[in-house]
């Protein structure tokens, strides 16, 4: 009887602890979102999108940073999608089971979680130094390298989910592997691959560390990616660290923008993936 009582007590304590921990975790995360909303919303106005980053204690917005982020992430995603989709296809359709394929898959998984600041150092050494200065291209390459393993991984996973009957059907029609992959496999896996791309985009749009010494920053609106380039995270970091209140407000507004963008893209990606499951 004593033992049964003890077991019952242990069980109840466990349930209470688990529920309590879940509440604490959710409360902490809710607290962060609450601060972000209350402090961020105050800085969101029309000027945020129409004016460039200001001097200390004067009004301004984040137009140059928003444009810079969009351009750099766009170029980065082009790099990541081309390399990632091809590499993922190679792993799933061609050489994934060779020893070399295992090595590539392993290293891709390592790259997937490698500290982003190291990618910044990599691009600094191989792009910024040879090119003679910080540039938007360097920033885009750094972000591209961060997104590529994500696209590679999701592409491989999605292609592996496609039934072999599809591949056999292509072969039976006399199609080459290229035609089979392009017209049948990629088409069937389209939504899933798009989700992978969106997840990659969501990951890089908030990345700060790799931009610090690749794209640097730019106070003015610029479309010349061979020069130092503005980005939202690149503007938020110094603004948040500064003692000026106007800059702090802008930093919170920028953080809110990034978070909303990341959440939006993630939700879109999930929605696309779910739509696929239901068919």
């Amino acid at each position: 009887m004593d033992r049964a009582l003890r077991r019952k007590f242990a069980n109840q304590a466990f349930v209470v602890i688990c529920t309590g921990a879940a509440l604490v975790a959710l409360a902490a995360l809710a607290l962060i979102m609450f601060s972000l909303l209350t402090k961020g919303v105050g800085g969101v106005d029309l000027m945020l999108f129409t004016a460039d980053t200001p001097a200390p204690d004067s009004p301004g917005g984040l137009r140059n940073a928003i444009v810079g982020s969009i351009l750099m992430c766009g170029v980065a995603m082009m790099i990541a999608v081309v390399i990632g989709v091809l590499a993922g296809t190679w792993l799933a359709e061609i050489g994934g089971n060779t020893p070399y394929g295992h090595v590539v898959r392993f290293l891709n998984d390592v790259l997937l979680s490698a500290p982003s600041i190291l990618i910044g150092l990599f691009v600094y050494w191989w792009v910024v130094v040879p090119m003679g200065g910080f540039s938007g291209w360097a920033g885009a390459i750094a972000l591209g390298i961060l997104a590529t393993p994500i696209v590679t991984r999701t592409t491989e996973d999605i292609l592996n989910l496609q039934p072999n009957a599809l591949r056999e059907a292509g072969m039976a029609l006399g199609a080459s592997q290229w035609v089979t992959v392009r017209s049948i496999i990629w088409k069937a896996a389209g939504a899933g691959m798009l989700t992978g791309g969106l997840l990659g985009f969501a990951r890089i749009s908030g990345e700060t560390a790799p931009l610090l010494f690749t794209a640097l920053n730019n106070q003015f609106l610029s479309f010349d990616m061979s020069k130092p380039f503005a980005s939202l995270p690149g503007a938020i970091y110094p603004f948040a660290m500064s003692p000026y209140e106007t800059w702090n407000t802008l930093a919170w507004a920028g953080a809110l923008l990034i978070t909303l963008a990341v959440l939006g893209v993630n939700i879109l990606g999930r929605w696309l993936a779910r739509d696929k499951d239901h068919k």
Partner: protein
Amino acid sequence: MSLQSARHPDPVDPIFRGLAFAAATTLLLTLGGLIVALMIGGWPAISKFGFGFLTSSTWNPVTEVYGAAGPIVGTLITAVLSLAIALPIAVCVSVFLTQYCPKAIAQPVSTAIELLAGIPSIVYGMWGLFVFAPWFARTVQLPILTSLDPESFWGKLLAGVPNGANIFTASIVLAIMILPYMSAVFRELFRSIPPQVREAAFGLGCTSYEVVGSVLIPYVKKGMIGVVMLGFGRALGETMAVTFIIGNSHRFPDSLFASGSTLASTIANEFNEASGVHLASLIALGLVLFLITFTVLAIARALLSSQRY
């Protein structure tokens, strides 16, 4: 293979295979290039300071003497501490979501947690700097400072400037940052367990605590260790969430509430002002960070290779 394609092979096919192979090789080259860059870039510092680079805690840009012991210890302490905080909570959250929570709540909460895992780390860093650090300084550090004898063990362990920017607060912010990620993957692990396993355990008369502790967790033990290592790797290499709040001092951390630095935060802070040996030392810090994280990630991936997440 059909007769037709054997006679007239598609000329695009070898190009496609070649390009796909090249793309896969690019990933390999990226990692190789990263190691080469870190070694060449860090070489001036490594050759100048030798093994002492790892053991010395002097970091002096004026006299050009650099040692990485402070940042290395700071990195390890914050990562271990944040993991120690986040791991039990993450396990509890995932157990709660998969075992106890009503389904109607579990789904939206799980989705919310997965979404939070994607929030950029700079947001966590800003929250730490503007909200958490001042609160911590006011309600925790000041009372401790005034009530503890500075010569006692606890007084020494918890000594520090009461501004909230220290190793302990950085660890807490890191813990909150890796929490959603770890909870989400733990939940996936628990969900991957066949329901028969759970039903069998309940059928033997186990309480739900015994089911979780003696059956479910051992069932996914390997995967869980892998996830823990992934979380550890994340905490080791995290830059922005830490740089904001750790206080950025290079001395060897001597108390929990002392300001410190990590490998990543030092690089982020000083890289753009550095040149010569200073720059090389920062890149050498990157090499140290790479070696630590690569080892951790390699172990994690090896453990997870049977069940990929």
